[in-house]
């Protein structure tokens, strides 16, 4: 991903937003401006500035950390993002079937791997302890409902 590709992704988002505007049904109730006026204005504003951004990305150098020699990523940035995303998505998918602590441990392993930590018994134990502490803090001490610590609905 570079600035140009990012601006094209924003253009795609603009198209989706415009499509969504066309899906707002007309109301039969009296309203001075209607339910679609402000969304149309917001999308119009977004499209205008996204086009300006695209124009700027074609005509001049826009900031991208990947071009900064002191800040640019070290090798394998995509695989690190991949580990992070995989860990997080496991959490999203498994938090209900296997409970907060095990899914949190898997998420922790993915994130620690994305920070170049090897998966080992130590990293499993640390991830498990972090997930356990968070569950105890929220669920037991602060009474926030995080569901069961462990669940076996998947079986």
């Amino acid at each position, binding site marked *: 991903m570079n600035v140009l590709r990012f601006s094209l992704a924003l253009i795609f988002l603009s198209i989706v937003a415009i499509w969504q505007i066309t899906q707002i049904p007309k109301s039969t109730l009296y309203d*001075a401006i209607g339910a679609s006026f402000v*969304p149309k204005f917001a999308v119009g504003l977004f499209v205008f*500035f996204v086009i300006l951004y695209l124009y700027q990305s074609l005509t001049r150098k826009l900031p991208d950390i990947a071009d900064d020699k002191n*800040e640019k990523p070290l090798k394998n*940035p995509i695989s690190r993002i991949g580990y992070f995303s995989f860990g997080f998505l496991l959490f999203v998918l498994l938090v209900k079937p296997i409970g*907060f602590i095990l899914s949190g441990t898997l998420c922790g392993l993915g994130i620690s791997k994305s920070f170049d930590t090897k998966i080992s018994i130590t990293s499993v134990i640390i991830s498990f302890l972090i997930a356990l502490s968070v569950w105890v803090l929220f669920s037991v001490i602060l009474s926030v409902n995080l569901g069961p610590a462990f669940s076996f609905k998947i079986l």
Partner: protein
Amino acid sequence: MSYFDQLINGFGNALTPSILIYGFAGCLAGTLVGVLPGIGPALTIALLLPLTFKAPAVAMFVLFAGIYYGGMYGGSTTAILLNTPGESASVVTALEGNKMAKRGLAGPALATAAIGSFVAGTIGTIALTFFAPIVVSVALTFGPAEYFSLMVLAAVSVTAVLGNSVVRGMTSLSLGLIIGLVGIDLQSGQPRFTFGGIMELLNGVEVVVAVVGLFAVGDALFLAWQGREKTKKTVIISPKNKWYNWMTKEDWKRSWKPWLRGSFYGFFIGALPTGGAEVPTLLSYYTEKKLSKKPEEFGKGAIEGVAGPEAANNAAAAGVLMPLLTLGIPTSATAAVLLSAFESYGIRPGPTLLTQQSTLVWTLIASLYIGNVILLILNYPLVGIWVKILKIPSQWLYVGVIIISSAGVYGAGRSSFDLALLFFFGLIGYFFRRFDFPAAPLIIGLILGPMAEQSLRQAMIIGMGEWTTFITRPISASILFIAFILFLSPFLIHFYSKRKKTR
């Protein structure tokens, strides 16, 4: 009952043991999150929002105020000892503070930051106490048209002033506006931006999910992408001498005027719809550089360069509360999250808040005075403990941040969809950070969008469908004119500076 009597009552409430414990916990948590890079007060308050169902409003707002003030205090510690500002407003403190620490003057730098924060926080709170009722009396004359114009001014000025580009700032703001409009329209019942009626989107996007995703998940994703955290050597410069021996007579002499000037900048700029602490800290830094008797020390570790910006930073925290409490308008990400905390209690901040919820408001203001004292006690002698916390390996720090963030979001509704949305906002946060888009306008747009739409529709109904209602009312017209000038100002400055160069 006069405002002074209500303030005294507020002190009576704030000093009860249970409220005091909340205040102390808030200050402690706030300082901790201020010290840790990547976790700010907005994120911490957002994570604690699910608790608003469990505790009384007064206790929670005292806790949140403690977190807010504590976050501002804590940010300076990492800026000085580690050259890593805990939050954006501490960037200027790092310029001189870390240089002082490298010269063996970490003690005086931390001391002038802590005492300056105390002085400025107290001055800011006094100013809030006296000016809030005045602003309220003006705001009571406002109708929907004036409110709409004020929201336009707040959104435009935040976008024009923060960040490096108006185009990127406005893109962020308009994306926030669109996200804020997701869900059922409350007046007509029409679904908007719900992709054919996805059930989870009908109630709109929770502010907590957006804030936590942008700041916590986005930051962690960005740092994972960079892969530099493990290679970074954490150079923490610990102060060697005892805490009570940190500032010399000369240091006091050089610090007290910057504290006062910084407080002035911080409160008054923070209280404007532009809000934020970034502008007053920068302004304070350059003023001190200009007025200093030893300007040659700037860039090498000048104590005035720490004292002034730190004071400005903390006074701005009180300033930002002014438009929030008196007008119901958030001008920073933290204020936006505080507003949604008010809403979760069914309280609408605005001119009537001071009369309808006077106990809450005056207890909150009283707790700010007490919080400043607690923070001075916490920060000054406990620096050693904060330094130890900074030694947590980054990979485990971010695992903790992400699991806590996910717990905060999941705990609010036990929805896997919200977690997926959290990751989506994390991706936005990553791209925003990588391509230098400011995140604060997105949050402000998300909060202000629905509020502005409501005011606009009310104003249009009152004005019989005439758009001129916004320019025929003098206050509304003046505010819109200022917003227009502010929007144009970056372009005009750019145009004139280019013209000057070509001459």
